[in-house]
């Protein structure tokens, strides 16, 4: 029946968007980084699947529309990157060096720590792109043999971690430079962390934006090589 064909996606799309909006409202009300809208929506969807015994594959097929838009949204990251690059030309060499150092540290330590603590290679490969913005993290994870949905959750969690602890970490390290602050946020915690440094001013915001794009490109290029190196461990 045609009518029943349309009910499931309609209900699941509405439910997902409503859950996300509740998350946005909670974040505005509480101003707590842990009240992340994406995280809250995932919890709501998880509860729904648990209560109704709906398989995850059924849910995913019905909200495919939202997932599809991740592609053009990833391409759209080019625009904030280009707009902020205009302002960073002079600091290009330190910026690229810091990004490369952060990118390699993030990918190698993520893989090594999972393996050292007894995790499987597949879990370690899913952890490797955790510093990247979610659409890139999922693509990289898929390409190197990780589990994309796990990488998405790890990436969101890493972003929340950076947003929560970056101020005290930088105080501890005596880092006061606004460019270094933005770069650290974008490289370690991508979008969620970048959102947390935007209120600090235009310099941290611009550097965080560049860090998201460039770290995504760098790690996506290096990850397959690293995965091949790690294949024997």
């Amino acid at each position, binding site marked *: 029946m045609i009518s029943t064909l349309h009910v499931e996606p309609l209900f699941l799309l509405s439910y*997902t968007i409503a859950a*996300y909006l509740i998350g946005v409202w909670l974040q505005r009300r509480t101003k707590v980084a842990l009240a992340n*809208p*994406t995280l809250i929506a*995932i919890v709501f*969807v*998880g509860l729904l*699947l648990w209560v109704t015994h709906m398989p*995850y594959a059924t849910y*995913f097929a019905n*909200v495919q529309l939202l997932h599809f838009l*991740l*592609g*053009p*949204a*990833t*391409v*759209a*990251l*080019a625009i904030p990157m280009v*707009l*902020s*690059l205009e302002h960073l030309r*002079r600091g290009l060499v*330190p910026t690229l060096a*810091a990004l490369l*150092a*952060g990118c390699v*540290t993030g990918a190698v*330590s*993520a893989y090594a*720590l*999972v*393996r050292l*603590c*007894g*995790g499987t290679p597949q879990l370690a490969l899913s*952890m490797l792109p955790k*510093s990247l913005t*979610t*659409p890139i993290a*999922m*693509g990289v994870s898929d*390409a190197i043999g990780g*589990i994309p949905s*796990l990488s998405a*959750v790890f990436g969101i*969690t*890493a972003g929340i*971690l950076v947003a929560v602890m970056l101020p005290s*970490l930088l105080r501890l390290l005596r880092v006061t*430079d606004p460019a*270094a602050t933005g770069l*650290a946020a974008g490289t370690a915690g991508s*979008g969620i962390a970048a959102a947390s440094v935007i209120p600090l001013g235009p310099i941290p915001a*611009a550097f965080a934006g560049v860090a998201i*794009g460039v770290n*995504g490109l760098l790690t996506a*290029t290096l990850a*397959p090589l690293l995965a091949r190196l790690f294949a024997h461990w």
Partner: protein
Amino acid sequence: MAILRAFLVLLLAQLVGEALHRALHLPLPGPVLGMALLAAVLLLRRREPDEALVTTSNGLLRWLGLLFVPAGAGVVANLPLLRSAWLPIVVALVVSTVLTASVTALVMQALQRRGERVVMEPLKETQP
């Protein structure tokens, strides 16, 4: 009309990215190649991206968090794995994230001190 054209630009950039990914067996995912291509084209033209493209991109990026939900909810399918491997997951997430942020910030601050400090003009409208 202009917004529709801007959306078409994003889709076409992704399409070319996907085609390159498949044809040349490049390690970068299609949308990432599309992003790099679009950034390269915009930089080579040496003009500000047109207004409709900025508006459309900001519109998509403003709700980026929502677009992660379908994939992120896949965690429920992986709950047994998360429960059995919580130790490596927690250690890697916390320690690797602290290391990444520290190394990036320290290298940037050290290199800037040695050379010339970044001179920044005030941003116009780059924030979504």
